């Protein structure tokens, strides 16, 4: 096993991870590791298998072969919920929110699960004041506290994207997988999301799928390029943007800098 030089155990690691749908290899023998507190971007053309890879890491999909490690432990056979308990949080490319509930209640549901109080039924939820305050603090942190009592469906899409991130942060993850956090957000609002991502706690390792190269190069310390289900290139942003092979398969269409 090749470990990155200055990190003992990666917080998240994929070893020879593969996923086949019939004869189609959507993820093919991928080795990947995420260091403590890393800022890592995953890029690649449409259909490269980025979201499938995230789904394999989070446990939404079962791999055809290979394994996933969280903090050095094999979690390949763990369910999605069990991986969450071990510190893996994620967001979705398309919002997955409780749209009929208020913003505060959305985050409160996540806090209740993390704190292990979600099976309690003899006290109203507001009796757990500490947890309500915690949920509210997450909203303040992301600058959406003023919308706390509005139903999610009344928020603009951009602000809903922030709720999406708040739900993941409420799990206090050690690893955060962000699947195109700015997807579908109008240009004007995307800078807010960028600020939020930039201000994520330093001890959280972040893997971000992103199409917007401005975000990738501003945010990431390390970039992995995926093409047709395999890791095509990996390196620091400057190397990647200078790599002629990467430019031809991916950046060629939208040259950077």
């Amino acid at each position: 096993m090749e470990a990155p030089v200055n990190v003992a155990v990666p917080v998240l690691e994929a070893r020879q991870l593969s996923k086949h749908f019939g004869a189609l290899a959507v993820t093919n023998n991928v080795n990947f590791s995420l260091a403590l507190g890393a800022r890592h971007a995953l890029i690649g053309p449409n259909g490269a298998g980025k979201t499938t890879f995230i789904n394999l890491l989070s446990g939404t999909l079962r791999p055809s072969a290979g394994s996933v490690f969280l903090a050095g432990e094999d979690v390949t056979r763990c369910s999605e919920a069990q991986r969450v308990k071990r510190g893996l949080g994620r967001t979705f490319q398309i919002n997955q929110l409780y749209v009929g509930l208020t913003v505060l209640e959305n985050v409160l549901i996540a806090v209740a699960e993390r704190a292990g109080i979600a099976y309690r039924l003899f006290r109203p939820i507001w009796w757990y004041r500490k947890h309500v305050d915690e949920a509210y603090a997450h909203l303040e942190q992301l600058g959406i506290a003023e919308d706390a009592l509005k139903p999610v469906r009344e928020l603009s899409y951009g602000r809903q994207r922030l709720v999406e991130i708040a739900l993941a942060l409420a799990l206090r993850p050690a690893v955060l997988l962000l699947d195109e956090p700015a997807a579908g957000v109008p240009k004007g609002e995307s800078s807010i999301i960028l600020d939020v991502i930039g201000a994520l706690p330093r001890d959280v390792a972040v893997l971000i799928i992103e199409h917007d190269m401005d975000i990738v190069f501003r945010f990431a310390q390390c970039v992995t390029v995926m093409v047709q289900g395999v890791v095509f290139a990996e390196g620091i942003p400057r190397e990647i943007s200078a790599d002629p092979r990467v430019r031809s398969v991916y950046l060629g269409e939208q040259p950077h800098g």
Partner: protein
Amino acid sequence: MNPPPVEVLAARGRLHIFELAPWALAVAVYFLADSYLTVGAQILVTILFALSLDVIVGYAGIVTLGHAAFFGLGAYTAGILAVRGFGEPITGLLLAGLVSGAGGLISGAVILRTRGLTLVMLTLTVMLMLNEVANRAYWLTAGADGLFGFQIWPLFGKFRFDIYGRTAYWYCLAVLFLGWWFVRMLVYSPFGRSLTGIRENTRRMYAVGAPVRRRLVMAYTISAALAGIAGALLAQTTQSVAPSMINLDRSGTVLVMLILGGVGRLYGAFVGVPVFMLAEDTLAKQDPTYWLFWIGVAIVALVLFARGGILGIFDRLLAGTHAWRRL
């Protein structure tokens, strides 16, 4: 400065004057219209049954056509106990809840692995199987004849079940009140919120680490136990149990009554059940042959034009009136 969020949440769950209306009405019926006590008790029982259904349909988002299985299981438990000579009502009620809850736990653990239409079919299947057991296990259930004429001991050893149905009415009202209190507590609890979360977005629920299936089975069990208590109430107050308590007609009707009132809002059962049962009564008198047709027309109209049920209509009329919004 705005009130702290905790206060706002708590204010939403505070008991509102509206919520006392059904109880005031029920007490008024006793004093003003005592010829309706028998029908009244049946309405109260059916409200409890519909309320139990609301826990899984309205809050957890599980659609079932087999809820009568648990109603019947409770009714038979109470009936069999009484036939065998143990007619203590409260114990019978609790045991009925226990047996039905166990039925919900076991069947739920098996069938809640599925979703959608498959699940609906499986709820139906479980009920049909139970109906068949009630028909065939003659030694226990007296088959198609049903159990009747058994003795229920006086309530608390004091209040006899009289032929006017006075004791029965208070008994049903008190049990419904306790059931309502419990369900109300449940829906505002973290557990209740997590059920709403499952209904609103199951995918996200997995992603926040919720053991979704276990949670659903727990809700199903609670709902089954409440339905069983409702069934036992009917068995005890009418002193009869029959296999027809476990059929599609009863399962479907209670679902229709709940939809009529409004699903997932705690008071849908309190509105839908009396409206349906009184309409049934009135229409059957006016048009003995085709009354069901008119019920059908009313439901089609409601589904087309008022999707939130009767309470949904009030929603639109009173939109923005703050106190109304959470009912």
